[in-house]
């Protein structure tokens, strides 16, 4: 089985953002520098092969996600409070989409529980593939995959 392509990850990322939160993203160069703190979420999975997905997003992306998922304004305190939880849930949906699209629905797959934090960006030690996109606001979003 060939390793997943960046195009697959980009497609999954775009579809999940659009269908979960009505947010449109487009492919973009991976940022050289990130804001001092970003939303960062990781999700382990087991299937034919195990691995980890990591989603990194600028803070305004998490807030906009939360606002759209909750049906409130991005300036609403509820959206600001729920940015981390929104990133976590979106990675959960991305994880389900990834394991079923890449490994198929005929094999057992298991997702772990997503862990999300507001913290400085730390590049993973290694990665198999990555997808870099930007939200309409211009804020960066990065999905990284490490397959065992």
């Amino acid at each position: 089985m060939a390793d997943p392509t960046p195009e697959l990850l980009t497609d999954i990322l775009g579809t999940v953002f659009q269908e979960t939160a009505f947010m449109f993203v487009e492919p973009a160069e991976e940022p050289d520098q990130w804001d001092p703190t970003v939303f960062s979420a990781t999700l382990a999975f087991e299937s034919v092969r195990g691995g980890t997905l990591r989603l990194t997003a600028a803070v305004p992306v998490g807030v906009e996600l939360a606002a759209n998922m909750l049906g409130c304004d991005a300036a609403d305190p509820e959206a600001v409070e729920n940015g981390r939880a929104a990133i976590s849930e979106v990675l959960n949906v991305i994880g389900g989409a990834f394991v079923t699209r890449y490994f198929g629905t005929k094999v057992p797959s298991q997702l772990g529980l997503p862990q999300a934090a507001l913290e400085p960006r730390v590049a993973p030690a290694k990665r198999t593939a990555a997808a870099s996109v930007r939200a309409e606001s211009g804020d960066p979003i990065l999905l990284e995959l490490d397959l065992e």
Partner: protein
Amino acid sequence: MALDMLVVDDSPVTRKMVRRAIGLCGLEIGQVHEAGDGAEALARLAEHRVDMVLADINMPVMNGMELVERMSGDPVLSRIPVIIVATPMSEQRIERLLDIGARAYLAKPFRPEALKDLVLEILGKGESHG
């Protein structure tokens, strides 16, 4: 008659999103209770009578699979239909969930209309496609 529901998901954003979808789907909804995992769900079910449970699978403490098993083994709770609202999963896992008593599976993300169709189908009020 208004439907009382229990939404079970460890993500507070998802619980609110599901509540919002329930509100948008055009059904007459009564009280909507929330629980963050299967164990909390069982506690809510001991306190409140509900007509339907919408439950995630991947949760800490007690996951959705165990919740369905526990409900199926209870003479009262087994009468409450459970719709699994979860991320895409393998066919084997969906079959297992339906085998142990879940009534339907709805993949996230979902449209409110899809939820409405499932609820009506389970209540026996859906359109016949046969």
